[in-house]
């Protein structure tokens, strides 16, 4: 983890360095929430706050897993492929499978994805 600088605790944003109190702008989260479906009508004020934190944990977790892939390849630069590998390797990230394999259409990796629900939905579209 990144070491906190000596001024981190007293500068606005504290140790994490973020400007607002939350990891992501709440208005943006709310916008994304509203677009997620027609039936999303009203959103309580606390929902984006919880989601912002959840999203932060989510990004942290994928990043950790992706970095493990980077290290396996003996590299120090985290690439998109590392993120893709982390997604493919984790069941609960199945909803992201399409997103990371879009550019890999010629890749043999696709064969292994044909039975996942996300991939099936894509084929049916």
């Amino acid at each position, binding site marked *: 983890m990144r070491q906190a600088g000596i001024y981190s605790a007293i500068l606005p944003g504290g140790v994490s*360095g973020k400007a607002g109190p939350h990891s992501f702008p709440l208005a943006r989260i709310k916008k994304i929430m*509203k677009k997620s479906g027609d039936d*999303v009508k009203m959103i309580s004020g606390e*929902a984006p*706050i*919880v989601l912002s934190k959840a999203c932060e944990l989510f990004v942290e977790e994928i990043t950790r897993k992706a970095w493990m892939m980077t290290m396996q390849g003996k590299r120090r630069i985290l690439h998109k492929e590392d993120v893709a590998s982390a997604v493919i390797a984790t069941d609960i990230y199945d909803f992201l499978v399409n997103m990371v394999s879009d550019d890999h259409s010629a890749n043999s990796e696709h064969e292994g994805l044909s039975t996942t629900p996300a991939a099936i939905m894509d084929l049916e579209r």
Partner: protein
Amino acid sequence: MVDNTKEGEALNKYYNTSGAGSGFGEDEGVIKEQDRLVPIANVGRIMKQILPPNAKISKEAKETMQECASEFISFVTGEASDKCQKEKRKTVNGDDICWALGSLGFDEYAEPLRRYLNRFRELEGERANQNKTGNKRDGGARELVVDM
């Protein structure tokens, strides 16, 4: 995510907004593509904090993560919204989000976030009390943390 544009796929930057509270873009009928994603700066910052100091992150990796994070929000919201519909409730609240996280397999997050939510509600309650007594001292000094 569904794109409701009438002008066709090529113009997917343009969006007919009929919903309330969309902000500035609504006047011109234009929603920038970026508005459907969380800001890449925030994503990059979180990633950087997790990695060792000498690690680097490619721009593409950040962009991919940006997409994934945004999709995560939609995904969880959809699940929470379904629950509200079934229970005939109109408002998606923090508890629904916590429930959705558990339901979708993010069990590790559900409990800590419930505690986070309860702490948030506590702080809000305290702040409301302060306002009632006319003492508008900033309650921002108290921190909201997640213990995992």
